[in-house]
């Protein structure tokens, strides 16, 4: 018989011990969060400290829990779920929509035309860059580097402008629909995107000069929070956090969806250039170089994108899928986002479960923070790049 704990375990602190010099030491429990600028939202990590060393870290989540899964069941329309998935990972809403749309299309056997596919890929990759810019910018900010954050946000703003022109919204788009898109991209979309690529590419170099090779930044992140390959896979860590540990695994390449098999790009992995493979710096640098890879994909997609095609061609009037279930995963900026959808021939899903990458990535935190200094917790949490909207759903 399992014992179910009705309450969180009582905080037990070991009694004071003699340090040997006439003084006594004792472990201390510190709550980091829920209101803490570097937890990137409302996360509480209960830290047990021995002096400055972390003995134990217990994350407490759920502060943002809205139970989107229950809402989805009662929406009475599959399309109405899309605004809800936007609000999971609210800094990468396009990627969430794409995952959901692909899952539903597979379930209903809908084929979308090439123009839709290319627009989707461009949007998803722009979103990846925007999300990574936010991730590396705020990561630098956590460590104490203020300027790179501003540079990143200037660039991110340009991407949001492109999104705004297409969808009317800056963060939560409801743009990618099941079977198509909300509307076609504006006439100067190609021009805008090409201009962004041109202006952004030199900025990656500047970011490297400002932050990646910065001595203070390297000292704070190299050899900190090392996540070994085996541990990462066993915990189900995915995305840049997994690749930072040296695992060449990217769903865009290893389990292709949409039209990703048509593009030529590299999977960036951490190599331990500044310290150990899988440290905070590796997770950071993977994100930086992935932006470059995303630029490559966007460039190829802009070249290949057909000018003709109705984006509403395959949008079904009413979605009523056959009784079936599907698990479909896509690579979002944070990792593997899976949707497990069960339908029972009704107009609302019987069950929607989102396997959120941040939720799984955060669960590795207790394993990699034991033995770290308390100040390094900020670096470790920042390097895993969580979005609490997605952790708590």
């Amino acid at each position: 018989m399992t014992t179910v704990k009705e309450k969180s375990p009582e905080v037990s602190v070991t009694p004071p011990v003699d340090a040997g010099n006439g003084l006594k030491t004792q472990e201390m429990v510190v709550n980091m969060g829920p209101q803490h600028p570097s937890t990137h939202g409302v996360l509480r990590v209960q830290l047990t400290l021995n002096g400055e060393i972390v003995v134990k870290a217990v994350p407490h989540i759920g502060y943002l829990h809205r139970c989107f899964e229950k809402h989805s069941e009662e929406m009475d329309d599959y399309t109405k779920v899309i605004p809800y998935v936007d609000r999971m990972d609210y800094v990468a809403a396009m990627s969430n929509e794409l995952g959901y749309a692909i899952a539903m299309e597979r379930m209903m056997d809908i084929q979308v035309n090439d123009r839709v596919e290319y627009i989707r890929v461009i949007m998803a990759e722009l979103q990846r860059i925007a999300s990574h810019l936010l991730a590396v910018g705020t990561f630098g900010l956590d460590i104490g580097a203020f300027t790179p954050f501003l540079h990143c946000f200037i660039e991110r703003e340009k991407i949001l402008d492109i999104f705004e022109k297409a969808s009317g919204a800056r963060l939560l788009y409801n743009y990618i629909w099941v079977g198509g898109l909300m509307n076609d991209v504006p006439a100067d979309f190609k021009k805008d995107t090409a201009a962004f690529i041109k202006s952004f590419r030199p900025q990656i170099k500047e970011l490297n000069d400002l932050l990646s090779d910065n001595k203070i930044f390297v000292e704070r992140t190299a050899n900190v929070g090392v996540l070994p390959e085996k541990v990462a896979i066993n915990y189900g860590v995915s995305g840049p956090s997994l690749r930072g540990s040296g695992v060449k695994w990217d769903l865009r390449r290893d389990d292709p969806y949409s039209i990703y098999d048509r593009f030529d790009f590299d999977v960036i992995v951490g190599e331990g250039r500044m310290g150990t493979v899988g440290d905070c710096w590796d997770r950071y640098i993977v994100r930086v170089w992935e932006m470059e890879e995303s630029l490559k994909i966007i460039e190829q997609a802009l070249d290949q994108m057909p000018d003709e095609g109705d984006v509403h061609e395959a949008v079904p009037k009413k979605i009523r899928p056959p009784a079936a279930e599907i698990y479909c995963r896509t690579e979002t900026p944070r990792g593997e986002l899976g949707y497990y959808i069960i339908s029972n021939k009704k107009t609302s899903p019987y069950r929607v479960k989102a396997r959120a990458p941040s939720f799984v990535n955060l669960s590795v935190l207790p394993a990699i923070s034991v033995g770290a200094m308390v100040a390094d917790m900020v670096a470790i949490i920042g390097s895993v790049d969580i979005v609490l909207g997605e952790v708590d759903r």
Partner: protein
Amino acid sequence: MKSTEEIHKLLVDQFGEETLEYKPDEKVDPWIVVAAGKIQEVAKFLRDETGLRFDSLMCLSGVHYEKEEQLGVTYHLASTSEKHKLTLKVLMPQEDAQVQSVEQIWKTADWHEREAFDMFGIRFEGHPDHRRILCPDDWEGYPLRKDYKVQEFYRGMKVEY
């Protein structure tokens, strides 16, 4: 790379017919139903056996089958080296939903099992930290069950919705 049917044959050779049931489905991928008391052994075999090597648990979801009065757990497995996928299911009666934990096999299951307990009230035997994860510890009921009724008050506060 192996299909679900081949994997099912391997599992039957190892564990016998009665613990496993193969469910082909023309719409989507087939799945295997495993007995609730056997899932840990089956999971360990799937992870460690050469040629199978399911090293990652992609997703673990609780499901409430209202008509059948059953609760279920669905395991979506993948192998990074062999590149195959597998879906396992465990079905339990609604009143006494208990299943072995696979936390010791894939650490991903740790938080996912806590979530399934939180949302459906499924108990996972042998889970080291068995408590709610998303709802407060003293929340009443299991929100994702189909017959869930929201409590009127929580600690003296009116619950909207």
